[in-house]
């Protein structure tokens, strides 16, 4: 009788070990990711970013079963998206990134999510502050209208800034800044979103020159 109890435990442990070995093998082959972080690593590899460190992990209930990682290394800052599929496990989704080369005091990138058939957008802006004097950032989106063009402004909220490895990063939900094309805005109907601009501010309120965010990505949700 004791032998049987042992056998059952032994068989269960053996099956568990087989399952774990299978998970590791499938992950190594890039076939099935049980954890979102595995899909995130594949996402970074496909985007040719090299090894990245996770700065912040987030999810957003507006974005279905997604898990998103603000990641960085010495060359780039990226927002790596992963999504859960019931049959295929965690899948890589997108990898917008901003290179950390260049003289800009703030390296920034945006990620816009649109859901087909719905009038909502989820708009994230992320990046790294390379000038230690910069204390806040204002964003501006330039919109084309049928009568006049329109600008929308918003500050990146203080809660969006975070310290990691001696650098200041930010990841901000700026959806309030995002209008809808075909929306009436004052006396003009918006036709399309134009560029996104960034103005860094020093602690004493001095504005540094505004410049366009060159890097970004759009993702259409199902």
């Amino acid at each position: 009788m004791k032998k049987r109890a042992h056998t059952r435990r032994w068989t269960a442990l053996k099956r568990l070990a087989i399952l774990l070995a299978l998970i590791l093998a499938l992950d190594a082959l890039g076939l099935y990711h049980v954890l979102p972080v595995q899909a995130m690593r594949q996402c970074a590899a496909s985007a040719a970013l090299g090894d990245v460190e996770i700065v912040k992990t987030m999810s957003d209930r507006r974005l279905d079963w997604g898990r998103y990682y603000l990641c960085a290394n010495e060359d780039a800052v990226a927002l790596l998206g992963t999504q859960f599929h019931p049959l295929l496990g965690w899948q890589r989704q997108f990898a917008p990134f901003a290179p950390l080369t260049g003289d800009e005091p703030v390296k920034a990138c945006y990620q816009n999510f649109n859901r087909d058939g719905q009038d909502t957008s989820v708009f994230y802006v992320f990046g790294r502050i390379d000038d230690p004097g910069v204390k806040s950032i204002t964003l501006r989106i330039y919109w084309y209208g049928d009568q006049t063009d329109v600008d929308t402004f918003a500050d990146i909220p203080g809660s969006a800034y975070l310290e990691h490895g001696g650098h200041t990063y930010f990841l901000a939900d700026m959806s309030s800044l995002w209008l809808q094309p075909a929306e009436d805005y004052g006396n003009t109907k918006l036709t399309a979103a134009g560029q996104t601009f960034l103005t860094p501010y020093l602690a004493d309120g001095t504005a540094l020159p505004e410049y366009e965010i060159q890097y970004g990505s759009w993702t259409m949700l199902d």
Partner: protein
Amino acid sequence: MTEQFERFTLAVCRHVPRATGDEWAEMKAELTAHLEDHCDALRLRGMSEEAAAERAVREMGDPEEIGNGLNATLSPFWGFILRLSTFFAVLLVVACILPGLFQVQILWGNLTARFATADSIGIRTEFQAIASTDCDLRIETKGHVVRVLRYATGTQAGESGVSFWAVTYAKNPMGEGNDSLIASLTVNGARHTRGAGHGSAGVVYSTYFTPVEPGTEAVTLVFDRLGDHFEFELPLDWGDAA
């Protein structure tokens, strides 16, 4: 005899609800072996086969009691772990059939790209070559490889310039290629103005054209991306067009 044993073992197993299929089979085999041994011993003592079987079954005791006893030895926790891990292992294998086929395609494309030549790229463009040079310039960046296999002087849409044939793939043979790496190549500081490409998820073959003044003796091909910098000085042959 076998029928009697079968009936007895089934009666026992009916009272072992915690057992898995394999465990039932194992229990049945053990009980049957035990009954057969006992039956053989009784026959050696001179009993008939029928009587020995009947007595062996009787002496085993109450099947319900035996079954309950066996059931109590089976841990529900380990049973749960056993069923759960088996379920997930089967689910994983089934779920990976289609992605597995896709991965085989990636692997095949990746391995092919490692031995590709400019002739095997097979992209047709309107580029009219004057003189072409086969080469194998290799750029390794962040787990990916860009191989420039040929460059040629010529004209495209009435403009003189240099066309390049390249292939990009991941260093990991199971990894997906990245078609944006070509955009990081510049010729004398200028990005290409026209390009064409094809490939599967694992590999991207492409040609790209950059305008260059006819007669230019050499161009500098530069790959600059995320801290990786490669430079190649390429002499140009313009034939009679120079």
